[in-house]
């Protein structure tokens, strides 16, 4: 495999490649949309990708690191370091606006500052009703809460503020 010529890429292009890597739990969001990628460093001895976990126990983190490695290896970046940082702590504020729209279209209500604590009334991503009920603060993954819409009668996930 050929190491790409340094002239051929910069931080921006690396970000473009990273945007192709989806979160394994929410496949409509890229790891960049989610704010998991904190930095891309082009060091003299290779590339360094700095990532952070959403939740401390997020089981997807090891998989995400592997996906980054595979994606960049495929493109010829073999001198690769993936480092994980814990501070500052990840927050839903880092989910991009584009990411929030993708979430909604996918059927997950995006985090909303009016519902810092998940409670009745989060807008249904399907029919936009606010006649909704919190079923459980814990959903299919740690980052989501379960809701039920009393208008369209469908259940949905809310991505909790964190």
């Amino acid at each position, binding site marked *: 495999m050929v190491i790409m010529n340094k002239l051929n890429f910069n931080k921006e292009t690396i970000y473009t490649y990273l945007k192709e890597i989806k979160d394994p739990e929410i496949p409509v969001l890229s790891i960049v949309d989610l704010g998991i990628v904190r930095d891309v460093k082009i060091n003299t001895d290779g590339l360094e990708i700095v990532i952070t976990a959403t939740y*401390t126990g*997020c089981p997807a983190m090891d998989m995400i690191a592997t996906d980054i490695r595979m994606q960049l290896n495929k493109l010829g970046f073999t001198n690769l370091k993936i480092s994980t940082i*814990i*501070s500052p702590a*990840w927050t839903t504020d880092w989910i991009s606006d584009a990411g929030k729209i993708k979430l909604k279209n996918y059927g997950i209500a995006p985090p909303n500052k009016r519902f810092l604590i998940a409670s009745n009334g989060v807008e249904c991503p399907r029919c936009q009703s606010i006649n909704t009920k919190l079923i*459980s*603060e814990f959903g299919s993954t740690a980052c989501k809460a379960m809701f039920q819409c009393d208008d369209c009668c469908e259940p949905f996930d809310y991505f909790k503020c964190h």
Partner: protein
Amino acid sequence: MNKPIIDYLLHLADNSLILGQRNAEWCGHGPILEQDIAITNISLDLIGQSRSFYQYAAQLKNDNTTEDSLAFFRTEREFKNFLLLEQPNGDWAQTILKQFFFSSFQFLLFQQLQKNSDETLAAIAEKSLKEISYHLRWSSEWVERLGDGTEESRNRILNAVNNLWRFTGELFIPAAYETELGIELNSIKENWQEKINEIFKNATLPILSNVFFQTGGKTGNHTEQLGFILTELQYMQRTFPGCEW
């Protein structure tokens, strides 16, 4: 001999790991699906916390130690978790009360730790706090619901209080490594008691007094329960050392 910081990190990690392992026993057995998912999510958060602490301890030890060797190859006497956390799940009420006692404690302790001069410890505490506030709210609501619920639920939570209260004294008796690190447990004890009083009042539960407190977990003297947990937790690595998925 370990440095106090390493002992303390192991204490924090063991607490989270052992309760995480206990809660995971509920997977597939929760009273209803939503609560099954809740308790296993909490489990995942706790195991995530323990990984962060073990990883940092391994880094400080700076030998061949890894997070896995700390979790899977230490013996009972080397574990420093609270006795409270190794107690059997019993019924839902006992599981909930254990979580509530511990989350109330963690919530206060981690607020203190996030200001610790050790930046990594402070960062782990800050990150974990976000999750702990969920655990605390969830378990508080359950204590109230059970205490102020039906006769059956009330009896069960009363029974849990009688079983578990004797393990709460240990939370506030500093081990040598805590004293050396300047971890201040007195103020936490006061605030913890206030939180318990508040929730127990809503739950119409009595506060016990004159209970003899069991201690020893922090320094490796455990109840017989821990051995059973470790047998299951460590089985694969003990049988096939270094095995990977």
